[in-house]
């Protein structure tokens, strides 16, 4: 047994004050981490002698393996964040190791994290989320996966998730899954096309039917019964693949872990969203040159939070460790807020809508003084607590029904508005993806609804890696947007 003390890293402080650092600085900070801590960050702790399973490394490690964007990003300087990045960036290897160690590898496509709890409630399984491969071209600043997808006819007019098809074709990004689960229906069309090609490549796909969401209660009830049946069918399939029967005790254990993780994430979002208006949260601080207003500051970076929020999609291949990693981040933020410290110069409160495939954008806005206090990343279904002690499949269905993508445009718009209200945002950024099946429809209604609330909004399309000119235009627009938000605050007397 590994003692809790060693598993939790937040007792060790790298630096007292939070700030964002580049990978060079991080590389140097890493030298300060005691050997003992590095050795004790391990995934698959159930496997003895798995010397490859350490994961606490600075981004420079991943720069060497070709993730070129890391050289341009800024990271939070806490050990918890370092650990988070190490954990996230090692996912690819982890899935291969899982397969080598005889675990069943389950690909979960198009569903955005709803079926994952069920997958992990079978012993010896890991889930991964191929759609997330859309980050790889950005992380590597490479067209390799897009070029590969283009060989199948999925070109620039298809969403970046086409990278997943490239990865399936190349067979070098994840091992052959023991089962592919494809959620179809009320999800993206582009992912549907990806799945069709994946199936044509010879992969066996278990289709999970997801009807679109109705808003009337009696319709929702009918849907729930149906979804519950889908879960039952999936469970039977998983029994077949894993050779283990569905076990209620194990299921409940898993759900309680998943809830713990979701709880930690929701705590984190709550803490960052904070309460009170931005003006209320200003504090006065005497810095020797007279009293000066110090605004509330950002306590955790946007891209770190993006990594945290995406954890419930596949738990990055290891549920137990993932919980620990996220709780470390939560504890770090908690301790920072207790100490009233945060990143200097980041205080314009923003809600980010739709996950940006290019994390650089998020970093950039933070560099301009933005702090991301709320988000709608199309993964609302991974946020609610799953009912414990109820009928297992009903409980899963229930939480699935809160999904962002399966409902109407109006529903999604409302989710965004909720985020704005909860976090007292001063501005909203929508990062759409050209050629995706929902962005062209949702953007305008969301923009309208947000503007109606008197909140400025910036809608951009994420630019594919390598298109420098187009990217600098986006940067310019961000600059102008932030200027206007700052001016608005001055005008209000902030």
């Amino acid at each position, binding site marked *: 047994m590994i003692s809790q003390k060693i598993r939790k890293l937040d007792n060790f402080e790298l630096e007292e004050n939070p700030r964002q650092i580049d990978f060079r600085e991080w590389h140097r900070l890493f030298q300060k981490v005691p050997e003992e801590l590095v050795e004790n960050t391990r995934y698959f702790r159930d496997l003895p002698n798995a010397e490859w399973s350490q994961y606490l490394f600075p981004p420079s490690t991943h720069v060497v393996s070709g993730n070129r964007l890391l050289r341009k990003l800024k990271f939070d300087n806490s050990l918890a964040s370092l650990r988070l990045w190490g954990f996230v960036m090692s996912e690819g290897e982890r899935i291969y190791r899982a397969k080598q160690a005889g675990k069943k590898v389950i690909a979960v496509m198009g569903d955005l994290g709803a079926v994952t709890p069920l997958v992990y409630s079978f012993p010896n399984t890991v889930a991964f989320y191929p759609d997330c491969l859309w980050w790889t071209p950005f992380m590597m600043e490479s067209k390799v996966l897009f070029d590969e997808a283009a060989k*199948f*006819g*999925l070109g620039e*007019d*298809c969403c970046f998730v086409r990278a997943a098809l490239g990865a399936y074709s190349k067979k070098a990004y994840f091992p052959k899954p023991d089962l592919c689960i494809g959620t*179809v*229906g*009320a*999800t*993206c*069309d*582009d992912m*549907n*096309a990806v799945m*069709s*090609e994946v*199936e*044509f490549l010879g992969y066996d796909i278990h*289709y999970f*039917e997801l*009807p*679109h969401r109705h808003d009337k209660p009696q*319709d929702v009830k*009918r849907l729930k019964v*149906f979804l519950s*049946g*889908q879960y039952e*069918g999936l469970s039977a399939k998983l029994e077949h693949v894993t050779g283990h029967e569905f076990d209620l005790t194990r299921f409940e254990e898993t759900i309680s872990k998943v809830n713990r993780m979701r709880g930690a994430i929701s705590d984190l979002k709550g803490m960052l969203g904070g309460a009170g208006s931005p003006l209320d949260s200003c504090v006065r601080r005497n810095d020797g040159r007279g009293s000066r207003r110090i605004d509330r500051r950002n306590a955790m970076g946007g891209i770190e939070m993006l990594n945290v929020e995406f954890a419930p999609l596949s738990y990055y291949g290891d549920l137990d460790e993932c919980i620990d990693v996220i709780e470390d981040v939560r504890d770090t933020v908690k301790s920072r807020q207790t100490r009233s410290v945060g990143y200097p110069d980041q205080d314009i409160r923003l809600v980010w809508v739709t996950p940006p495939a290019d994390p650089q954008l998020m970093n950039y806005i933070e560099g301009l003084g933005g702090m991301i206090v709320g988000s709608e990343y199309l993964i609302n279904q991974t946020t609610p607590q799953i009912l414990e002690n109820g009928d297992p499949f009903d409980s899963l269905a229930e939480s699935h029904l809160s999904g962002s993508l399966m409902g*109407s*445009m*109006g529903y999604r718009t409302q989710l965004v508005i909720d985020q704005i209200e909860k976090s007292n945002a001063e501005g909203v950024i929508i990062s759409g993806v*050209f*050629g995706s*099946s*929902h*962005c*062209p*429809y*949702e*953007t*305008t*209604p969301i923009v*309208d609804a947000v503007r109606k609330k008197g909140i400025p909004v910036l809608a951009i399309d994420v630019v594919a890696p390598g298109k420098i000119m187009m990217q600098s235009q986006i940067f310019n627009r961000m600059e102008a947007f932030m200027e206007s938000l700052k001016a608005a605050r001055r005008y209000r007397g902030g």
Partner: protein
Amino acid sequence: MKSNPRQNQVKDFTGLESEYLESIEGRRSLVGYLCMRTPVELIEAYGAVPIRIVSSPVAVSSGFNPIRNDACSFCKQVPELMKLDSYKYLSGIIAGSCCDQMRRTVDVLNETLDIPAIIYSAPRTYGQNASFFLNEMKAAFAKLADSLRLTIDENELHKAIKSRKQLRKLVNQKRYDGAISAPLIHKLAGSCLPAEKIIEFLTGLKPLPVNSDSVRLMLFGSIPSGKEILLIEEVGGYVAVDLTCLGDRVFEIKQNLPEEPFEFLYKHYIEHNNCPHRRSYAPLIDYAKQQIKRGAIDGIVYRSVKYCHPFGLAAKRFKEELGMPFLELDDDLTLQATGSFRTRLGAFVEMLEAQKRRKVAQV
């Protein structure tokens, strides 16, 4: 000018349709539908008239369109089409959830129109989830009927199903005989006329002479505007099979379907649907291959609507697997596109003609 029998057919038929629409004006509700996954019999059983919403190459002055440019050109056009005379008088709209974009389009319609627009889910899997999706379909129609104050007439339903079955049989036979031309099948597929009236019209049709030298083409892909068929004919091609969702595929006869009317409609329209959004590529390719054989096809004109994911993203797969001369027309539904299509179709047909001549010479 010599009269063109094919165009005359179409002219006669559209005349019939206008007459019919005039005759019922104000007495029956018009229900628009967006996808061939809609059981028109059911609309008829509710006493309404099914109006197929078809894309148009005619630019509509947009005013406000909340849908961005990179959306499917057809879906993007739908809210604007609603301002055209042909659709101005619709009482409601219904659509099978054929793709995410269509689902979003219905959302937009609900925001921008005063009439109800209703969508129901369709599955990708066959068989195992039928009862749920059948109920979804029923519920959607009931909801629409409710807001339009319509009630279903069971007898009408039986009648409509029966006559549609007859119609399908007849269309298949006449099409095979060469009595029904491709421009006409396009019109039939989207017609608002009750089956009996169409049958009446078709019964009198005589087979048209077909030039045996013409290259035989299969039109494949997503919803056509009809202009591409005319263009193909104009450059001397012959559309022997129309596998778009407004063509021969609409009249396909499916085997071993249940007798119970709703179950029949569900299986026929929703489950057994050869659309790449709801089917794997392998059976679709087999299906297309059968049609190619049946129609003795020389080449394929593949029509995809710009940013249509199901058909657009499948184009390359079909091209590779079908192993035939293949012309992809990626249509953004503008008038400019039409001009370039004429040129490209002309070249394609010429190339196939030359090939055909060489083949004949070799024999």
